[in-house]
């Protein structure tokens, strides 16, 4: 609307600039750490600006891909690997989300990470992550997507394990990488399958082939399931959600950026990116929606009982991601991305807020907080905004996007709708439970030294420094008004996004329904009220009726899933039993056989020499026995 069409170089620059920051950081800045933060801010700032330019272009073209041609990376016989930049609406929106949140988080981190001896390392990782995430969004070829997919996984690993001296952090990092990679196996297999079917990795070509019906339906279905497996891993959907809560061991800004706003939505993005293929198969769509819906409720229920602020937010993230999946599954492509868009802002806001709180109190345990609203008013306000938005209160951002999801669910399948609706209530409840426990009532933590959580601040109850407050304030804006990006009837995102779908792909478009809106808002409010009733006056733990105790215990243990995975399946079945048996087999059977042969030979020698008794006449006897044998053998051999 306002600018000329963006050239390809500029698009690549979006990706290149954080990479350059990384290079500089490793090469030079490492020696003057203080500059690392500013460097990143600058680099990401550039990316952000360029992303806006791209968005603008995309808007001009109604989201239709500009169609930069892709460049050959390498070729082996029939296997051609290209890299190219997609520049359509979806990419543009994603880029804006990624770069903007990233920018703010970088700024925030300057304050949050100040004084940490890994300061420059931290920003190096951040830069690498931002670059990879941008690359993931830009890539136009499955294999390249996969590459960056793994790279963001790596960054998540590095950043979760940033304070690697904490065993918990190290373990969480490993867990995150492995669990997501488990899903990635599906992704990889899908790529192999689709290549052996079509011989290309190019997404747009795949669209043509798939829509042209040139790919066998079974193959296509397997392909989609594989891709979805990857998405489940990355976006922490049931049953691979277990890594995300642990990931909170990382620094809070990381949680905000990676484990709320950007990386975890990569799964959603991937499914959305391949939506044209997905929507060809209703069954797969049902699977997607089902997993999403279940995850939404499932995670929300756990969030209810968590006492660690960040974990509440983590489960909330899982739940919201489920929400988006549900939307996709029910064909609401735009709704999903819209929710992704809004969620990125308010969830980042909430995380940064929690970080700010932690900066003051030195802990994330809500039982040791309370009454902070007087001590840190700005944090309180911003957090409240985020919470309301998450709860989906009219007219905040969350409301609009959530409402579209609900609507599409309603039209698609009432069960999905029910799930979504329940989730709304739960969401509102746990969000405000957290909110009240943290900011209302009166302070319960120890003002004295001690309770060293976070990264070892001792509590000095005060508002956080400006570098941290500023991003909160800035983020609060989109958290409140981002809904405006796609008001029903007015449009906005919807035009850009739909334009980026290939011809003839119908995405579920819906009319705004007052009924649903009102209903959901009511439920949300109910949840808030309940939360107030139970926690509004600073109670640590709500008086849970006896009958619900077992349920509570189950929830507090996250449905025992983590223990099942780690202790029983992996630890016991796989490692102890399987691995143990195999190792024994290797040592005693395989190697034993070898040594056995040697032993036998040795024994044969030792016994054989017994015959060499020094008795001349034995020698003669042996000789003649040999002769006889030779003779007989010969005769037998000769006479047929």
């Amino acid at each position, binding site marked *: 609307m306002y600018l000329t069409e963006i050239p390809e170089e500029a698009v690549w620059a979006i990706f290149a600039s954080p990479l350059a920051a990384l290079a500089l950081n490793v090469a030079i800045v490492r020696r003057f750490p203080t500059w690392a933060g500013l460097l990143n801010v600058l680099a990401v700032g550039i990316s952000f600006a360029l992303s806006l330019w791209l968005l603008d272009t995309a808007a001009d073209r109604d989201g239709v891909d500009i169609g930069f041609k892709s460049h050959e990376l390498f070729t082996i016989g029939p296997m051609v690997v290209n890299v190219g930049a997609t520049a359509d609406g979806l990419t543009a929106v994603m880029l804006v989300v990624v770069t903007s949140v990233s920018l703010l988080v970088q700024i925030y981190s300057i304050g949050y990470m100040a004084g940490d001896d890994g300061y420059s390392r931290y920003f190096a990782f951040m830069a690498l992550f931002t670059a990879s995430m941008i690359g993931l969004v830009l890539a136009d070829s499955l294999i390249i997507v996969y590459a960056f997919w793994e790279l963001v996984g790596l960054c998540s690993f590095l950043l979760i394990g940033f304070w690697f001296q904490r065993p918990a952090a190290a373990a969480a990092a490993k867990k995150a990488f492995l669990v997501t990679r488990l899903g990635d196996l599906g992704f990889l*297999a899908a790529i192999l399958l689709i290549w052996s079917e079509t011989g290309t990795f190019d997404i747009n070509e795949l669209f043509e082939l798939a829509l042209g019906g040139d790919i066998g339906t079974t193959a296509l279905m397997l392909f989609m399931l594989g891709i979805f497996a990857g998405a489940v891993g990355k976006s922490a959907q049931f049953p691979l959600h277990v890594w995300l809560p642990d990931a909170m061991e990382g620094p809070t800004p990381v949680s905000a950026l990676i484990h709320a706003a950007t990386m975890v939505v990569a799964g959603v993005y991937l499914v959305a990116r391949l939506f044209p293929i997905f929507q060809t198969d209703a069954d797969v769509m049902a699977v997607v929606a089902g997993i999403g819906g279940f995850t939404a409720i499932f995670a929300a229920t756990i969030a209810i009982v968590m006492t660690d602020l960040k974990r509440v937010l983590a489960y909330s993230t899982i739940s919201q991601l489920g929400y988006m999946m549900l939307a996709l599954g029910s064909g609401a492509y735009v709704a999903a991305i819209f929710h992704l868009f809004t969620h990125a802002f308010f969830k980042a806001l909430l995380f940064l807020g929690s970080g700010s709180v932690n900066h003051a109190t030195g802990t994330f345990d809500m039982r040791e907080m309370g009454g902070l609203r007087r001590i840190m008013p700005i944090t309180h306000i911003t957090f409240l905004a985020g919470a309301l938005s998450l709860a989906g209160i009219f007219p905040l951002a969350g409301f609009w996007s959530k409402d579209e999801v609900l609507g599409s669910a309603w039209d698609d399948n009432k069960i999905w709708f029910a799930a979504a609706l329940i989730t709304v209530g739960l969401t509102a409840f746990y969000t405000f439970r957290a909110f009240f426990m943290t900011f209302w009532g009166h302070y319960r933590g120890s003002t004295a030294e001690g309770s060293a959580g976070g990264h070892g601040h001792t509590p000095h109850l005060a508002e956080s420094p400006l570098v941290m407050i500023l991003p909160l304030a800035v983020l609060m804006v989109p958290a409140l008004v981002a809904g405006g990006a796609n008001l029903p009837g007015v449009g906005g995102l919807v035009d850009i996004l739909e334009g980026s779908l290939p011809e003839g792909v119908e995405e579920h478009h819906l009319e705004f329904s007052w009924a649903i809106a009102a209903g959901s808002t009511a439920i949300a409010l109910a949840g808030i009220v309940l939360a107030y009733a139970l926690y509004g006056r600073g109670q640590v733990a709500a008086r849970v009726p006896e009958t619900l105790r077992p349920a509570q215990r189950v929830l507090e243990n996250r449905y025992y899933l983590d223990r099942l995975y780690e202790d029983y399946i992996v630890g016991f079945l796989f490692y102890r039993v399987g691995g143990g048996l195999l190792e024994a087999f290797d040592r005693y059977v395989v190697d034993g056989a070898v040594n056995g042969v040697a032993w036998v030979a040795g024994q044969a020698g030792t016994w054989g020499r017994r015959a060499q008794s020094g008795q001349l006449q034995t020698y003669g006897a042996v000789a003649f026995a040999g002769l006889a044998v030779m003779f007989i053998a010969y005769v037998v051999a000769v006479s047929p």
Partner: protein
Amino acid sequence: MLTFIVFSPLVGALLCLLVPRRREADTRWVALAGSLVTMGASIALLVLFDKDDGGFQFLERATWVNSEGAGFKLQYLLGIDGLSVALVALTALLTVVSVLVSFGITLRQREYFFWLLVLETGILGVFTSLDLILFFIFWEVELVPMYMLISIWGTGRREYSALKFVLYTIAGSSLMLAGFLILGFEAGTFDMTELRNIEITDAIVPLNVLFALLIAAFVVKLPVFPLHTWLPDAHTDAPTAVSVMLAGVLLKMGGYGILRICITIMPAQADDWALGLAVFGAINVIYGAILTLRQVDLKRLIAYSSVSHMGYVLIGAAALGEVGLMGASLQMVTHGLITGLLFVMVGLVYDRTHTRQIPEMSGLAVRMPFLATAMVFAGLASLGLPGLAGFVAEFTVFIGAFERFEAPTLLGVVGVLLAAAYILWMIQRVFFGPTSEKWADLDAPVQWWEGAPVLVLGALILVLGVYPTWLIEVMEQGVVPISERF
């Protein structure tokens, strides 16, 4: 040219012996010079290599033993194609690395470097010789040096391991010799440049048996389950440099032989055996990976991971398509670099901690940040992280093999997950977590000869991972003709 490359290390070796006893400590410089000369030459080779003209290049042909009557015409025939030139360069490079990481050696240095360089000659000979018998000879040359290196400068049950290695190899290579002779008798020549154009139609043994004979030595070397048990022992007890050579290039001799001899000369039988090979490859991957998870000895862990990774070579080779073969070849080179680096790191860590027992280590990252970073880097490469060399190779293998063998390939894919598991777990246990006070006062500065190889290898791994084309184009020149046999 090739003769120079192959025998320059030998010259260096002899020079090492000539170092006067009282200056023995300076042997390392002689060795370094020698290996650098070889590397320079092989880099020149890589540059001069013309990847556009097919067939073998830099041929050097001289009749050595000519007994036409006995059907025993033996040529001194060296030559390279894209496949071998890459491996030659790899060998030269890793030898330099080995020499560097051996700078700390104090025991009987002259002999040590002598054997190390002799070993290089043997390996280079294997990669360049184009006459079956010559190939066999070079193949045997490497035995004595390895035996000496492991059993004199090794640790633990070094003599057992050394002997195990030697006997395994001899057993395999004897069968290989039998195969060569039978083959040569049928084809009437031992000249690979001719053999690659001949179709072996019948022999005095069933052709599949002949193929088995030919491949015997290579599957031992690669190694393939269940013939792998020499590898962990040899690695565990070998000195660092030898482990680097062993994992870096000796194993590749196996893969190289399979590609260069078995598949090229007997395509039809290779086709019959393909499924079997693929299955064994998959077993290697999974079996090796699971056993790797179980290891508590750092070096043994890496050793088993090699077993796992060599499985990919087998799978790729079994696919018999251009992509698969290319993947196998790439995997050989990349694994050479990566595992080489890993073993260097293990060695450096061991030099400081004097233990390889993982449970005794913890939080070393604080004490040795550089090593930790490098180890993490190598580990990531080894678990096939995109952007690093390992991924390109493994992915190519998968692509090449999937069409032909779905199930084995998918097993291989699972191996990627297991690889991530054992690498990350190892890193977590060794470098992360609280630093036990045992290592509190552990700060050995990284010497240049320790740092240099790490940086070089690391850079190569990164470059290959981001832009593998240059290597691929070179290797294709060698691989395409093989794939065209099918």
